[in-house]
Every structure is written in C-alpha cells, then in structure tokens.
C-alpha cells in the first residue's frame, strides 16, 4: 500500500526548512564520481575475492547504492560522527578511510583498522569519527542517538549521522531511538537506505507502506524522500538537512530510495526479485548518471583515465594489504579490557 500524500501529510514539516543551502552549487562531480567509482570497484574486488575463497565470513556489498554514501558524506564535516550498518564499505570509503586498511581488515590482518578483529561488519575508524559498521540490524540506531546526545551535552554543533536499511526500521531500536532523539532534540541525521529488500524480504510484505519517512512523522521528525540513485539530489538534500540539524532544531530523517544491484550477501540467488526489476534499476545506475554529467565537461579519454587510475589504486591497495601480517596468538587474546588511565580516590 502506498501512503497517500493527502492521507499522511508527512512532509509538511519540511515547510519550515530554511530552504536549500547553496542549491545545486558547489559540488565537485568529478570528486564524487571518483569516490563512487572507488566504492564500486572496491566492492567488485571484494566480490571477486569471495568467489575465489580468499575471504572468510560473509560480506554485504553496496553496488548500486554508492550515491547515497557519497552524497551524504559530501554534507559532513570531519568532526561529525557516523554510524554505519552491515553494508558499510561505501560509507567507509566515502568518509575517506584508506582502501588498504579496509582490505587489511577484511583479510583479517593485523594492519586492519581493527587489527582484523572486526572484519566487514564491525569496522570502526575513530580518527574519522566513524563509530563503526554493525552486525546487528538496527544496532547502530541507539548508538548514533547516544552520539547525538553526546554532542548536545557538549554544546557542540556537530551532527551524528546514522545509516540504516528499511529492514532495520522494523526493529524496536528504531522506534526507541527516534523517540529519544525527538524528545530531546538531538542532532542526529537518520539516513535510511531503502533498497526495498531486507535480505529476501520485500519491505511491503512486512510493513504496510513503502516509505520509511512516514515513520518519522510519528515523532514530529522532519523527513525527506530522495532519489538515492542521483548523487546530486542526495547531496543537496543532505546539505539542507544537515544544515538544519546543525542549527540545533533536532533530528531529521532522509530516506534515499535505492537498490542493490548484487545479492544480499555472498550467497544469494536472488529468487525473491525479478530480473526485470533488476534491469530497470540498473538503468538508473548512479555511476552512469555521473559519467553522463561529467562527459559534458571532460572527454571519454579523461574519464577512462580516471577509471584506470582508480582501478589500479584498488589493485595496488589489495596487493599491499595481502602482504600484511596475520595476527598471532597475542593479537588474538589481548586487549579485551581497556586499561585504567589513572588512579582515583
């Protein structure tokens, strides 16, 4: 069922937004494209590695969803907090994490951001205020809310960004988090990557509506639905929303309609969706859209050069990561508890 705009007028709260900040301006499409391409080629490499048994565990690729990560990060400052999901490589890369160190982490190497202990689903990069990917669906929502509370208590103008999938919006933590954030006016930007499926489960099979944004209305949280396949639209809306949150008026929700081109995780025959649906969405490939825009300014050759250099950077990074050291028994066993810093009385 689709909620009728006149039935649930959820976006009217957007009315008091201070208008778009720098409309359509100030975006470096080439930079955004490079980042999106890095994500795409990184994910393809990971896929390739899995197929060849080079990686343990599982993984969740965000191929097709790159524009959301790139567009949202565009709007952030280095001191903003980010909380990610199980499908977090794109967020990490868009935030500026080093490719080599992400590979190292996936490979379970000592040089990984988390010494190989976290892997794909538990990957934190604190120097970037990236509080971590998260293996528990919905697990990041209260953590981001707590980061928002932290900012508020410190009286700062940072924001906390919380990525989550539409599937995660069925968890109770979603409700509890949005309620706290709205009751306390916390500076949290909730970003729903609505790719319509949670694993095999179509959102509308386990909830009455298509849109997650609707759920924000119950808390008086302003929300916006954006085309998650269009990096500029994501970035514009993210800027507007982040700007609003930074001003201290409380949380917002951005719902980006998107699609994962690949399966849910490494083994997924995608029986739950049609090849037609997939190809319809592939026609909206965010990278293709960016390329079209870019080709108005640069030549095919220049574009090809970008592609080649990103590609070789990915390969080099992987090669370097692979040369890293495996953890020894001490690496595995130590560091369970943090040390006390000083004696107190």
């Amino acid at each position: 069922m689709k909620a009728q705009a006149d039935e649930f007028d959820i976006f009217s709260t957007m009315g008091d937004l201070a208008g778009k900040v720098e409309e359509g301006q100030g975006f470096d499409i080439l930079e955004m494209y490079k980042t999106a391409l890095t994500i795409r080629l990184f994910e393809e490499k990971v896929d390739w590695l899995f197929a060849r048994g080079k990686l343990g565990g599982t993984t969740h690729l965000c191929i097709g969803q790159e524009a959301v990560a790139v567009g949202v990060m565009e709007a952030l400052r280095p001191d903003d907090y980010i909380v990610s999901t199980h499908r977090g490589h794109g967020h990490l890369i868009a935030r500026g994490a080093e490719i080599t160190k992400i590979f190292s982490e996936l490979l379970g190497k000592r040089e990984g951001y988390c010494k190989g202990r976290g892997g794909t689903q538990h990957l934190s990069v604190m120097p970037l205020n990236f509080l971590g990917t998260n293996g528990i669906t919905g697990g990041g929502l209260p953590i981001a809310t707590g980061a928002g509370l932290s900012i508020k208590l410190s009286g700062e103008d940072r924001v906390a960004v919380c990525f989550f999938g539409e599937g995660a919006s069925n968890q109770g933590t979603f409700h509890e988090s949005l309620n706290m954030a709205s009751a306390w006016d916390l500076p949290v930007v909730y970003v729903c990557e609505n790719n319509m499926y949670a694993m095999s489960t179509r959102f509308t099979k386990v909830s009455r509506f298509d849109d997650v944004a609707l759920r924000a209305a119950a808390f008086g949280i302003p929300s916006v639905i954006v085309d998650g396949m269009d990096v500029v639209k994501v970035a514009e809306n993210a800027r507007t929303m982040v700007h609003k949150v930074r001003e201290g008026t409380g949380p917002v929700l951005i719902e980006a309609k998107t699609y994962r081109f690949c399966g849910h995780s490494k083994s997924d025959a995608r029986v739950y969706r049609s090849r037609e649906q997939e190809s319809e969405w592939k026609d909206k490939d965010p990278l293709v859209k960016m390329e079209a825009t870019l080709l108005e300014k640069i030549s095919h050759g220049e574009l090809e050069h970008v592609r080649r250099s990103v590609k070789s950077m990915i390969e080099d990074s992987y090669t370097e990561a692979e040369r890293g050291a495996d953890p020894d028994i001490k690496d595995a066993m130590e560091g369970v508890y943090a040390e006390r810093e000083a004696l107190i009385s």
Partner: protein
Amino acid sequence: MQKGKLSYRKAIYNALDHVMERDEKVVFMGEDITEYGGAFGVSSDLCRKHPGRVIATPISEGGFTGAAVGLSMTGYRVIIEIMFMDFITLAADQIINHAANVHYMYGGQVKCPLVIRTPAGGYRGYGPSHSKSMENFFMSVPGLKIVAPSTALDAYGCLVSAVYDNNPVLFVEHKLLYNIEEDAYPKRLEAIPLGKARVARAGADVTVVSHSYGVQLSMEAAKELEKEGVDVELIDIRTLKPLDMAAIEASVKKTGRLVYVEEGDTFGGIGSEVVSGIVERCLPYLDGRVLRVGKPEVPIPASMVAERFILPDTGRIKEAVKKSLSWK
C-alpha cells in the same frame, strides 16, 4: 524412501516438514524463511508445502518471539528461527520473562509449546556478532529446555520431541553441523526423548562430555587418542537442560576422569555446571583431574587466523584428556 545420505540440514528440514504435515496447529516463523529458504537454507521449500503456516517476519526478533508466545498460549505449537544465535539477545525478555514463566506463574493455566531454533558457533570468520555459542546463557532459566544435538539423527529426533514438548525449548544448531551426514539413510526416523544423553563412544580411561559441534571435535580427538593408547568414553549430552547427570555420573564412576568440551566460554560455561555436579555426586571416585575445554574470555574475532587461537580444537581436547590422566 529417500535416496542418498541424510545431512543434519535435511534432518531438521524433515522434522519440520513432518510435524507440520502431521499437525495443522504447527506454525513456523522467522526472517527470510519463505522463498529464501531461511538461515543456512534449512527451511528450503517448506513454505510451499505448508502455505500460510510458514511466516516470514519483519526484522523484529523481540516482537516476533513475543508474538510466538501469544500464539503458543492460544493453542498453536510454534517454531521460530533466530537467524544467528547472537541475535537471541534481542528476544531475551520474551524468552526469559515470558515464554519460560507463563506455565508456572499462571498456575498451570497455560502452556507455551515454543521451539526457538537457532544456528550458533564460529570457525567461519563471521566475527563477534555472528559467531557465538550462547546456550550457557540460558542454563539458569527455569521453565526452559535446551537441546543441542550433534548428529543428523539426533537433530531429527530431538526436534520432533521439542515441538511436541509443551514447554519452550531452545534448539541450538551449530553452523558447521549442517553439512555432516549419516553414513546411510536411516530406515526410520524416530523421536528422541529430551533429557537423555547418548554414549557416542564407549571407553575406559577418561569421560569426555560435550554437545553440538563439540561432540564432533571430541570424536576426532578420541580417534587420535586411541592411537596413543588412551581410551575415551564420549558422552553426547544432547539436552543441556534438563541435564542427564546420571549418565555422566555412571561414566565417571567407571573412568574416574572427566573433561567437558564446549565452544562457548569456559568461564560460566556448561562445563562448570557439569564439573560441579560431578564433584557433588562422586568426588571420591575421581582418579584424575576434571577439566574444561572451551573458549577463553575473548570476543570471537573476525580474522579466521585469530579465531583459531580462540576456539577449541582437537589439539586442546587431546591435551586436556592427557592432563586429566594424572593429578598434576
């Protein structure tokens, strides 16, 4: 009759299919258990065989477990699947404060026939939130039963019994067991009463007790130890709650030594309970050390290299068995 060998995965599927076939009041709920085939493919095509009674839920472990409690209180037998055991933390209230309590606290007025199926365990590089063996967390829940079979036959038999038990049963399936197979396809699959241990290997020197995948590891260790002249008696405890202490006691009285093997933490583990129970019952019979093999107090790292330092293996089991032979 089926052809080929019976895998653990297939055994569970067969048990589910059997109980759903037999009784319209059996309902199966969980995330992605319809066309996707559920966690590790166990539920396969069940949704087509039993339309309407295989229900794909939203990602709401607490909510659907609670709904399953309501469903079972009103006349259904419910099986739920928690995709990875680590996520059971989200349904802890519904299991501990509701499912396990309702029969007693409501004075016997209601029953809660609910089976909570869940894949547990590591060795696969899934990392800290997808690898835990948490059966020991539920040992102190009165009103709950816990089953963790190690063979395909036991998986079938115990699951059928669990569904027909009138109490909530936590049914733990180790991820590495799904592909193990019985040597031949059994003529007849039978229900196995909960609460009864199984002697997986008779022996004279040391009693090794384990459950779930630990039994497989222990069996390997026992075979290797045989070559070294140590004759292990291996008990597959199968049901952790209620615990068949009589079977362990009988074996320890014979061998005088005890080693418990489990994948979860040693500290506060099942082994602690078994060792304490044995010490209470037959301390004078002990002829060597009683030891526990399990996980140290460390989250399970994603790195498969690091994971191997943490989780039990045959080497550590053999070492413990040898150690138990002496007092030092």
